[in-house]
């Protein structure tokens, strides 16, 4: 039998071009968007790289590439900040949303600032979820099942009594950072009140 090359071999092309072939060194790359597309349908794949990071499809990327990507893309995101607001840390992640018809994880980039915690989506550039630090009074990490594997998720207890459920790529560190920011914010508010007296 003879090998063929036809239009219907588009699937072979996809498999090769998205999954195989050389990728560039992290110092040079602008993008290696092709790498992680394996195993997702094209529609999901083109939803954007942040989304794929959220769903763990970038495991093929080594740490260096990920770091590069985070650095590179953070630059391109025009994040709205208040004048006195400083970013403490950020992480890829998502928030559990049970508003609307369907319960879903909404992915984005978490920004922790000295004032608040918010989840930012680059496209179309919106804040998906936001909480002022002084409205958060407790943090708990819990194991949950996500797509058949266990992972740690972070529960936020709000002063209003509500609970938020979030996920971030490095949840332990992220929790610690939020904890520290909460303490700092608490102390600031105390100082502020003392001054007022």
């Amino acid at each position, binding site marked *: *039998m*003879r*090998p*063929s*090359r*036809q239009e*219907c*071999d*588009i*699937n*072979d*092309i*996809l*498999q*090769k*071009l*998205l*999954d*195989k*072939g*050389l*990728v*560039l*060194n*992290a110092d*040079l*790359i*602008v*993008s*290696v*968007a*092709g*790498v992680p*597309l*394996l*195993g*997702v349908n*094209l*529609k999901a*794949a*083109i*939803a*954007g*790289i942040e989304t794929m990071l959220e769903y763990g499809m970038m495991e093929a990327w080594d740490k260096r590439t990920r770091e590069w990507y985070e650095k590179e893309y*953070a*630059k*391109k*995101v*025009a*994040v*709205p*900040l*208040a*004048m*006195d607001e400083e970013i403490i840390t950020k992480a890829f992640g998502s928030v559990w949303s049970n508003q609307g018809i369907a319960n879903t994880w909404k992915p984005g980039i978490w920004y922790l600032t000295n004032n608040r915690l918010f989840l930012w989506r680059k496209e179309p550039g919106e804040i998906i979820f936001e909480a002022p630090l002084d409205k958060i009074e407790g943090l708990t990490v819990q194991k949950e099942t996500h797509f058949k594997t266990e992972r740690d998720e972070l529960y936020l207890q709000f002063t209003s009594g509500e609970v938020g459920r979030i996920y971030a790529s490095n949840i332990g560190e992220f929790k610690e950072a939020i904890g520290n920011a909460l303490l700092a914010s608490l102390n600031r508010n105390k100082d502020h009140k003392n001054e007022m007296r």
Partner: protein
Amino acid sequence: MKEMKVIGETELGEGRYVYCVVNNVAKKSLGNIGIERAEVYTVPYKDIAAVVHACQSQPYQSRDANKVMGWILSHNDVVDGATEHFGTVVPFSFDAIVKGGDTTIKDWLREGYEKFKNELERLSQRAEYVVQIFSDQDKLVEKILVEDQALRELKEKIGKMPERAGYLFRRKFELGFNDACNAMRAKLVEEFASQIKEHVEEMEIERKISHLPENYKDKKLIAAFSCLVHKDNVRSLGQALGKISQEGYAVHFTGPWAPFSFVKLEEV
């Protein structure tokens, strides 16, 4: 209301979309055959060259699947064109973009020269072929039942039972069948691999195929291989596959492709 400031304005610079690296000495235009009709040309260093087009330093991304598909096909066309033109290519994945201009590309080729040259040498006269072997579900069941006495007996037992009473047994059969099916597949992969091996330079057993060919959708994929084949051996590989096909399997055999699965520079 607090005053807002905006951090990190988008800054786009010069970039080069890389299709592949080839043996070539001169700078040369290949015409407007690139993604979105970009002009594709070579950036040479010594006797090798990168096949690129000039773009902005940002990835090609779109929510329009057809558009992305178009880009991917264009990428493939350029790599095919380059193969025809220059012989051996070291192909890049879709959306590999170097930040910088031709000078950056030259520096990059200089740094990786040895690696590229070795790879071009190793891959010369060779191309990649896709081999996927499918079976009809029924044939697979039959084959498994012939070899597995316990399952066969279970099936006979179920056949004699009233519809409802058989539920647990049917479930037991299903589970047992799945295990047997996996074992059978593993065995067949080995068998096919040994039949193909002597005709290929290198072979990769694909564990996961993200995009299956349309015309085999109703069949079960048994084994998938990417093969690096010397041009003199394509015929004999075809004959080996012909034998497998005569045994009643459906064989998907495509190529020649640029050696996407066999470039081994890891990172360049």
